[in-house]
């Protein structure tokens, strides 16, 4: 099962490599990973998505908690949560294709953020599934380049991951 684990950790050099090292060392997968400082500059927030059964996820969270740099963590997928991913995508757009792609972008509520005579650069946010769906809709043939940010997530409602 796919899980989203949110980690609050010390914003120290080496902290990220300890987390990534743990995954490779113990044979866990990382599907995606995003990390940036929080409103408190001494803390970083990391969101990582991984795949595993309950036993494996329990081991992952226990081992993450064991790292001295990890302050707190939560498995967002255990509860209602919001997840978003940002995608920047460059597609070939000329002739009749231009209108077609524009319509597709509107349907997915994306934005065309850069234009040349033959290329559109599109920005799209949403769940990973939505980004996959857009990718399908546009068709592989016209895609020139794709950049995805990886998933960021937050719990719904009043729940807060903080100190």
């Amino acid at each position, binding site marked *: 099962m796919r899980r989203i684990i949110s980690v609050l*950790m*010390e914003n120290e*050099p*080496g902290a990220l*490599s*300890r987390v990534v*090292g743990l995954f490779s*060392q113990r044979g866990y997968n990382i599907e995606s990973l995003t990390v940036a400082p929080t409103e408190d500059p001494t803390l970083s927030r990391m969101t990582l998505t991984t795949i595993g059964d309950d*036993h494996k996820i*329990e*081991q992952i969270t*226990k*081992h993450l*908690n*064991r790292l*001295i*740099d*990890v*302050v707190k963590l939560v498995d967002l997928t255990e509860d209602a949560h919001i997840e978003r991913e940002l995608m920047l995508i460059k597609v070939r757009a000329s002739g009749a294709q231009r209108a077609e792609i524009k319509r597709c972008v509107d349907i997915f509520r994306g934005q065309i953020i850069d234009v040349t005579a033959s290329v559109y650069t599109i920005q799209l946010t949403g769940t990973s599934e939505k980004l996959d769906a857009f990718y399908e809709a546009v068709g592989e043939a016209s895609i020139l380049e794709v950049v995805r940010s990886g998933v960021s997530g937050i719990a719904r409602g009043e729940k807060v991951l903080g*100190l």
Partner: protein
Amino acid sequence: MELLSGGDMLMRALADEGVECIFGYPGGAALHIYDALFRQKHIQHILVRHEQAATHAADAYSRSTGRTGVVLVTSGPGATNAITGIATAYMDSIPMVVISGQVPSDKIGEDAFQETDMVGISRPIVKHSFLVKDARDIPTIIKKAFYIASTGRPGPVVVDIPKDITSPATTFEYHFPDKVKLRSYTPAQRGHAGQIKKALQLLLQAKRPIIYAGGGVVQGNASAQLTELARRLNAPVTNTLMGLGAFPGTDKQFLGMLGMHGTVEANYAMHHSDVILAVGARFDDRVTNTPSKFCPSAKIIHIDIDPASISKTVAADIPIVGPVDAVLNEMLDLHKHAEEKQDQEALALWWQQINEWRDRYGLLVKPRYSMGDMIKPQEVISMLWEVTQGDAYVTSDVGQHQMFSALYYPFDKPRRWINSGGLGTMGFGLPAAMGVQYAFRDATVACVTGEGSIQMCIQELSTCTQYHLPVKIICLNNQALGMVKQWQDMQYNSRYSESLYEESLPDFVKLMDAYGHVGIRVTKREELRAKMEECFAMKDRTVFMDIYVDPTEHVYPMHIAPNGSMRDMWLNKTERT
């Protein structure tokens, strides 16, 4: 306030932390530190002959005393040589602080002379690591390093210090913190009261209980509590390789070691038990055999300081996270007021069954070896126990001799059996014996080894000369890598691929002479006792006993793997359970 250079601050901080000795080896990037060491009086330094030995010696110093071992090495090769010892300490959860010199800050990343990314290389085998970026941080980092290394589940901590940080050219105000607090690190102080209560209830209801205690009981200083609980419950006790000595080895409630080379009675009792109390043990693959077949009718209570150890390979029915001493104290308190009574009849039947197994399969009832002309390795260990009155510190290397020691030398006290259990590091024994002997100058310290393992750190004989460390080396010489050869006998049709030394072994007696020590060769059984007594009578000399033992001997019992359960064992070369 006093002004100190980074190097002086480091030394002062170590002294303020209570450090008495450091095992180490100097080199370019550590020279400022070594100069600061020279100019102070509080801390002794033991110069080893290879950095690996420094880590093993500090590790064993820690295992025998309970204090944190300290290592000081230089950058590059000094640091990488220390890696094996750091990994050894990590696998066995030994508190250790390793200080490594590093190239100057402005050279880091430039492939400078003797540069290596120590923090990166050591990352998977340390509990935590620090790269010092400002000399002013040294006292706090040292305080944190010792705090992290010695609390919770202990482990090694690396402090990497670039050379410019320790330079005598700049001085700073020195202040050593009384306490440190890390918001991201708060090891459990006690176990969950409800879980402890449930656990005790289950133990009192048990008809066939067993206590399975590991290295955590030794590290957590909980032997007294464990022994008391075992007595009150009249439960049989088995120890892991790391736990030997946690419960008195000569006690009638003790079944011996369990696991791959455990005793039949211990493995049978585990397999047939209905409640297992696992304390400071981690259900290692060398214990459980096939996890899915592990103790089918047992409910498992698991006490451990590290939540990640619980339900890792075998699911626990009642997990208790906390320091083993605190949890056992609480359990003992509850036991005083417990209303539930044990089923004495069932317990008597259980003991009857265990004693039957003992009478039938016990190591000493029915020796696992036949007596011929050749000296048997097992009898050497039994004799070692007799000659040292069971009161020596015994360090071991890795292989057959290690298992023979674990089986045939019953340890009545914790911190007496010093071996590399988790990583299985050959070369551990001699430097470990040095670390123990340095801590206990008047104690009897024996290093049981083989002619293979001893050669992995034999250069330390010179360190023994320099510091007058009168360790006794008991070498079970079978002219082969015994354990490798045993597996080749059992699984590879006796194809001895690179496990024989043929005629290449050194004359150990002459070698000892060269180092200024005493060498004794024993080839005849009838000479063994007299020569061993002679060896231990030389209290102030380092002595090497080169004992030629039967090269065909195997370690038994031995788990049948793969797919075997705890009770599936080879009893000798032809019989199995």
